[in-house]
């Protein structure tokens, strides 16, 4: 055990440290006459005749006297440092494990739930828009639209099951129930409408309107509530996972300060500047504090990026996709209403404005463009902006045709699936937005994984480091205590 002696360090000369050590004990000596030990001793027989109390006073006096001596102080220091080390280690490990669990919850549950809620809303809106345009085509509806409607229903049911299983938020229960109760009623109305349409009965259109009202008044608002509930659940989990470890960090810092103070005390009390045990403990504590800090900072950074570059983008794309769908539905319904569709047309204009602003570069797409961080997502947004522009031009033409009495031509231009019709352009726009959404989802998953990686191994590392701190303290101070025997 190499102990380094003061001469290597202290400039004033060999005598100075001893002198300083003696001086250092002076305050304690100066306090001694005022300390209770002496006066109590003198007054004890007269005032406190009973022996048990006297014995207790004696014990306390002895303890205080012992604590005033260096070995006592050293023992007290050991206890405090060990206590702090254990507390900081436990708190640190607890904090890291809790955050790691929350991060893996965000990756495995909260994120996918938000996606499921978006899937649900999109699938429901798409089902409604698909049914409306199938009606517009009349008679035997095209197989492609029928397939699309069935796929929408399958996607909605699947998303609903995922949500019902995973959403723990209280606010998610009521909307989930509402959707589960309304969806079969909706599909029943659509099938009734379909059957009547095939028999060429106008009653079919009335059932379709009732189905659409149920979708817009009950199902879609419930899907929106559900989305808000799981989004809040995600935000809470993410905030908790990136919260500053307020218990562990101060305890670890306190333990570090305690270690330094102990060494300063030792250096003054003895003529040795460095105590290998305490130096090792300090180093371990320092590494622990830094590691905890870096891991927390890294995880919080990745989580914040998972929102900024991931889920916030996903939300923009999802909203844009839903807005496009609603506009598409309104375009069809304006034609279905055949002149009585001014309300649908008004809503189309408003929805398009929300989607792309007045000039086609604002709105949700404008926001997504401003937030796009890589080439791929920027390209997806640019393509979507171009598609919206083309769609608006086509829509203008459709309205002109319909308003000038050329209804069949307007319908053909609206529902066609080729590139030159509104239907084709809408499908392309939907694909662009889906691509942007998938990119955002991938980035979200990547950042959350990175946050998990930042926390990986930290709990075990903290355990090892804090054990080192404890061993260092016990060995370092134990040695000094033994020297006084």
């Amino acid at each position, binding site marked *: 055990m190499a102990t380094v002696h003061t001469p290597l360090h202290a400039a004033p000369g060999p005598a100075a440290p001893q002198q300083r050590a003696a001086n250092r004990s002076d305050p304690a000596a100066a306090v001694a006459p005022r300390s209770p030990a002496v006066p109590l001793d003198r007054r004890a027989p007269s005032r406190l005749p009973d022996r048990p109390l006297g014995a207790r006073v004696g014990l306390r006096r002895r303890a205080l006297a012992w604590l005033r001596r260096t070995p006592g102080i050293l023992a007290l220091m050991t206890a405090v440092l060990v206590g702090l080390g254990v507390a900081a280690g436990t708190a640190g490990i*607890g904090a890291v494990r*809790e955050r790691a669990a929350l991060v893996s919850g965000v990756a495995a549950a909260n994120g996918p739930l938000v996606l499921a809620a978006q899937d649900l809303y999109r699938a429901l809106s798409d089902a409604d828009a698909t049914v409306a345009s199938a009606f*517009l*085509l*009349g*008679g035997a509806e095209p197989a492609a639209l029928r397939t699309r409607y069935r796929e929408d229903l399958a996607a909605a049911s699947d998303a609903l099951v995922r949500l019902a299983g995973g959403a723990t938020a209280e606010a998610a229960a009521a909307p989930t*129930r509402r959707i589960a*109760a*309304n969806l079969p*009623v*909706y599909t029943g*109305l659509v099938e009734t409408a379909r059957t*009547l*349409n*095939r028999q*060429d*009965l*106008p*009653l*079919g*259109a*009335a*059932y379709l*309107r*009732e*189905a*659409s*009202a*149920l979708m817009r*008044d*009950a199902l879609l608002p419930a899907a929106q509530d559900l989305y808000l509930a799981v989004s809040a659940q995600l935000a809470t989990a993410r905030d908790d996972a990136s919260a500053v470890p307020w*218990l562990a960090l101060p305890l670890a810092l306190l333990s570090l300060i305690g270690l330094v103070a102990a060494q300063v005390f030792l250096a003054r009390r003895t003529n040795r500047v460095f105590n290998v045990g305490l130096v090792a403990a300090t180093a371990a504590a320092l590494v622990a504090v830094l590691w905890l800090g870096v891991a927390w900072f890294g995880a919080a950074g990745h989580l914040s990026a998972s929102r900024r570059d991931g889920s916030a983008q996903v939300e923009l794309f999802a909203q844009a996709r839903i807005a496009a769908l609603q506009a598409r539905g309104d375009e069809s319904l304006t034609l279905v*209403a*055949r*002149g*009585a569709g001014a309300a649908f047309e008004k809503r189309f204009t408003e929805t398009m404005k929300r989607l792309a602003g007045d000039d086609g570069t604002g709105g949700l797409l404008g926001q997504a463009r401003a937030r796009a961080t890589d080439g791929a997502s920027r390209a997806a947004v640019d393509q979507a902006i171009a598609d919206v522009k083309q769609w608006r031009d086509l829509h203008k033409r459709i309205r002109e045709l319909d308003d*000038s*009495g050329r*209804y*069949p031509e307007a*319908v053909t231009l609206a529902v066609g699936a080729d590139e030159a019709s509104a239907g084709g352009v809408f499908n392309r726009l939907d694909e662009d937005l889906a691509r942007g959404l998938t990119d955002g989802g991938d980035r979200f998953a990547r950042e959350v994984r990175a946050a998990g990686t930042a926390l990986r191994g930290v709990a075990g590392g903290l355990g090892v480091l804090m054990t080192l701190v404890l061993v260092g303290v016990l060995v370092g101070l134990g040695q000094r205590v033994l020297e006084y025997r």
Partner: protein
Amino acid sequence: MRKVAVALAALALLAGCSAPQQWGAPPDSKPVQPRPAGVQDPAVLPSSSAAPANCDPLASLRPGALPPPGQPPAGSSMAKIVQRGRLIVGVSQNTYLFGHRDSRTGELVGFEIDLAREVARALFGDPTKIQFRAMSAAERIPALKNGEVDLVVRAMTMTCDRWQEISFSTEYFTGGQRLLVPVDSPVKSIDDLGGKKVCAAAGSTNITAIAAAKSKPIPVAATDALDCMVLLQQGQIDAVSTDDAILAGFAAQDPATHVVGPAFAAAPYGIGIGKANADLVRFVNGVLEKVRADGTWTAIYQRWLSSLGPAPAPPVARYQA
């Protein structure tokens, strides 16, 4: 610390849940009742303006000689329409046999559609120079007043109240308001419907007539009379009450319903025209004179309404003194 709090919260939750979730407790659900958009239950009644006492709702303006197609008198309402290149007509696309959408072609067809085409034929010599604008009953008068449409041919009952706001052509079809009920319903007439829900289109004379019935039924209004049919099939109302020809169209779509009772309100149909266009009223009346006389009216009736029985004689035109 947090874990302890979570554990305590979970325990509290478990303790809280154990009470209501007992075995055999009824499920927390109730059946969904969908409704067409815009149903009013009970209905808001249309306001009625004070009509002059000596009004004959069936009397319209006397026609002059019909100008040849494509050559309307200069400066007339007809000249404006010919210059525009098409006649704009408000119709129904939900009234089976009167104006409905042929689901195979997507085109509007029916008795009223064909009648409107006759007006286009007289204007242009071409029955296809026409643009249909589907509208609900409540939208008819506003659309005429603000000039969105030239004519409204949409089962519009001629009343003195409405004469205050618009003009009518002569009568082109005589309807009467009756009831449509499920075949197993005990209802025989409006007198059996006291306190029961009876549905008609919002803004129609039918709603007013239901509310005025002595038995005091509860009027329910829907955007379109066809929405009433949906409500009836779903058991949300007890009867639909509108004009017999429209009800016959409804009954034809659902064999489990039938038309019952005597007509309790008259429903003469006229073509609605803007108050300012007296020349157009006279022109349309001229067209109606012609189709009555040359058998076109009867041919159109037989094409669409033969299910109501053999074609009667066309309604006799009445003119203001």
